[in-house]
Structures are given as C-alpha cells and as structure tokens.
C-alpha cells in the first residue's frame, strides 16, 4: 500500500511541476511582450504609417494590408469551406468512398509546411497567373493553406449536432437545403465561427507563406494588386533587418497578440451566448 502511495505522491509532484513550469513560461513570454510592447505605446502607433524602415511611425498601412489579405482569404475560404464541410458531414450527401478520400487529402494538406505554400503561391499565383507579389497572391495562398482547417472544423461542428436533427428533418420531409439553411447552420453557428477564428488566427500568424507572395512593402495598399506586409512580416523584418527596430517589433507583436486574444475572447463569448443566440434567431 505504501508503494502505491509513494508512486502517487511522486506522480503528483512531477505533474504539478510540469503544470507550474508551463504557467511560468506563459507568464514569462506573454509578460515580456506586454511589458516591452506597452512601454512607450501610443495610440498614434495605430494611425500612422511606418517611417524610417519601421523604426519610427506606426503600423497603419500594415494593419490595412493585413486586413485586406485576410479578406481575400476569407472570401475564398468561407464558401468553399462551408460547402465542403457540409458535404463531408452529411451522411445523405452520398460521399461514399469519395468523402474519406477528400478527408484524407485535407488532413494531408493541413500538414504541409507553410513555406511550401509560399513556394507554390509564388510560382503559381505570382508568376504563372501573373498576379505578381501582391495582396491578392498572398490572400489566395493563405486561403489554400487555411482551407483544410476551416473545412475540418466546419465538418466537426456540423457533426456535433445530434444526428436526430437530421433524422427529424428527414422525417418531416424537409429538403437538405432547408435543413442546412434554416436549422443546421444556425445551430452550428458557434462551431462554425470557431473554425473561422481558428483559420483567421492561422492566417494572422503566418509569415513563411507570405514573404514570397504578398511581399513586404510598407506602404498603404491602394489595390489588391499592390504588395503589402502583414503584422507578422512587419515583426519579422523589424526584428531581423532593422537595427533599433526591436521596440516597434514588440509594439507590433503586442498589437498582433491583443488582436488574436480579442478574436479568441469574442469567440468564447459567442460560444457561451450561443444557446440563446442560436435559439432566438
């Protein structure tokens, strides 16, 4: 009996240490970013364009380019992802042998390192299709990269609805369009949003796929065919290539993280609100 007890104690000790270590690391890193990012942070940072290679000024144009790239990415991902997610989740869609194949290839696509998407986007969108290094090229590249994640989470959130909904709808003679349009999608909305946020988060965090596709021009983009740098690339460039750029790199990192946290928070609020949100539609 004492043997069992000792084992229990040791295990608890090791596991607590792991837990506390991680909490410590989290505090250290996030604390570092908040601490350095906040020192000397002014609101002007968000409303001015970068100057002096980013050492001075703010990140207005970078924010704009980031937003545009995300929009392009969403415009492609959302419709294709949603439809594919429905196809994969619906047992009446006749996926048969096709669906597992698709699922398989999506899982695989999700595992492809992002730099390979960068290679692909550069060669295909920028070069072959003549879109050059531009926001459009970057957004499309990101879309392919994010698509599998969104599809899988859309599928999962639709699957998480009880099968009985689908059965009941069938038993009432409802068409699939009616079922998804009026019942399933509204009910799965929080899950779908979660998938979207997951995808957005990935896109926001991406650098490797973008350096050869959207480029890193710091100016305010005027069209989708302009090159533009995202927040992540701005951080990379400031940290790597700009002496004296660390401060603004930290500020940008702070903005990026706060943005990601905010999206996450909104998502959680949404999920928590979801029952009433769903049901009062």
């Amino acid at each position, binding site marked *: 009996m004492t043997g069992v007890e000792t084992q229990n104690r040791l295990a608890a000790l090791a596991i607590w240490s792991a837990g506390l270590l991680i909490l410590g690391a989290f505090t250290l890193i996030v604390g570092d970013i908040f601490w350095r990012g906040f020192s000397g942070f002014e609101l002007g940072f968000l409303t001015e364009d970068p100057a002096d290679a980013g050492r001075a000024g703010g990140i207005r144009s970078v924010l704009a380019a980031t937003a545009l790239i995300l929009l392009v990415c969403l415009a492609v991902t959302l419709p294709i992802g949603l439809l594919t997610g429905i196809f994969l989740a619906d*047992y*009446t869609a006749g996926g*048969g042998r096709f669906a597992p194949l698709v699922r398989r290839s999506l899982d695989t696509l999700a595992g492809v390192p992002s730099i390979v998407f960068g290679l692909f986007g550069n060669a295909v969108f920028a070069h072959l299709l003549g879109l050059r290094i531009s926001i459009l090229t970057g957004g499309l590249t990101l879309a392919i990269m994010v698509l599998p994640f969104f599809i899988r989470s859309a599928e999962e959130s639709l699957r998480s609805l*009880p099968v*009985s*909904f689908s*059965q*009941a*709808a*069938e*038993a*009432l*003679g*409802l*068409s699939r369009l*009616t079922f998804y349009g*009026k*019942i399933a999608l*509204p*009910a799965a909305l929080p899950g779908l949003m979660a998938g979207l946020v997951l995808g957005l988060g990935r896109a926001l965090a991406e650098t490797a796929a973008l350096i050869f596709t959207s480029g890193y021009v710091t100016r305010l983009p005027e069209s989708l065919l302009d090159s533009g740098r995202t927040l992540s690339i701005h951080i990379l460039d400031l940290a790597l290539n700009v002496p004296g750029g660390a401060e603004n790199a930290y500020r940008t990192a702070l903005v990026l993280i706060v943005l990601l946290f905010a999206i996450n928070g909104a998502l959680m609020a949404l999920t928590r609100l979801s*029952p*009433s949100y*769903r*049901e*009062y*539609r």
Partner: protein
Amino acid sequence: MRHAPPAILTHNVSVAFDGKPAVSGISASFPDCAINAIVGPSGCGKSSFLSALNRLNESVPGCKVDGNIELFGAALGRFAPNREELRRTVAMIFQRPVPFPLSIRRNMEIPITEHYGRNRQETAGRCEAALKSVGLWGEVENRLDMPATQLSGGQQQRLCLARALALEPRILLLDEPTSALDPMAAGLIEELLRELKSQMSLVLVTHNLAQARRLADTVTFFWMKDGHGYVAESGPADTLFNTPREDVSRAYFAGHIG
C-alpha cells in the same frame, strides 16, 4: 363486396445493415384508425422495421430494405410521388423529442412552409390548429418565440407531434415516444394517441408492456433468432395478451424472459 385495404401491409420485409440482417421476413398488416403496437426485447429490430415504412433508413449508409410494403393498397412508390411527400404522409416521432434548436414558432413554420408554401395566414392557422390538437396552445400561445428547447420533455414531445400533425399525415409512426418522459407527461401523450386514432393509423413501438396493454388494438410481437428479429406472433391485442399461442410469447408476456 370489397374490404378497405389495411393502412399498412408488409410482405417479407427485411432490413440489413452492411449485409447483416437486423430483421427479416416481416409480414404484417396494420389497420387504419387503430393503434398498432410493436413490442419485443431490445435490439430485435423494431426501430429498423419502423423506419422502413417511410423509407427513413434509406439515407443510412449501408442499410438495405427488401420486401414489399403497401400503404392503403398502393405500393410505396405509387403511394407518394417522392420521398418528401411520403414522409409528410407517413410521419414519425422518436424516442427522445427532437425539437430544432429554434423558437417554437420556427419549429412549426419550417415544415409547414416547406410543404404548403409561404403563406403567412395559412401557416399561422395550421400552426395554431396543430398546437391546439396536442393541447399545447394554451401553454405556449404567449411565448411562441421562446426557444423550443426550454420546454419540458413532455411539452417538447407534444411539440414534435404537433409539428408532424400540421402536415396532415395519414399514418403516424411512433418509436417509444414516451420512454424518455416522466410518468405524467407520458400519460398526456397516451391520451393524445387515443384521440388521434380516429383520424389515422398509428404504429407504436414500445418497450413498455403495460403501455401496450393500455393502448394497443393490435399487437405485433418481435423476438430474436439467429441474431436477427422476426415476428413471433401478431394479432388483436386481447388475443395476444390473454391467450398467446406461442411459447415464447407466453413467457415474454408473463415476464419470465426479456
């Protein structure tokens, strides 16, 4: 003189999943304007057989239904022009109530507009009539925009009944409709079923022998052999409960087995 055909007539129906039969050789006849109970132990294929009657297991991957099914004397294919229409006419209620996670109103409206088109007044009328027929109107009249999931279990099941009745079905399939409800709520539903049988044919799968005794006009008793279900005995409720012919029925109804 011609007899009116039974509401449902099946001949040698079998349902298999991935080639493995769940029930087989089911020949049964369910009259109109009656409650037809199907009883039997768990897993003997009662639900599988029931969903074959409105082709609901057609979309279950790997499920195959064989044999002949006639509704009111017409083969399934001729009876309704398409699946949607068939399911409007042959409605189904499940063990757990399945309200959609929307408002009560939307729960009623969606199927009605799907089948009868978008006509606000007619829709409202059908909705009210159906809710009244299940005795729910008084309870929810003033809060139709409340989420249906906030109703109690019994109310939810009555809502599901109303949702189906609004489509004016001729046959109502019920798969253990009260087993997830508390005794009071179950009592209300039983009463409703008794009222409904004047207008349509009801097929009631139940685990609860007492319930079958209380409600059924005919009883079909499923038992299992070689891993799949078959009809061990069927007939008027009185006969089956009081003077069953088969040994297995006798033992089952006496509570010795199952």
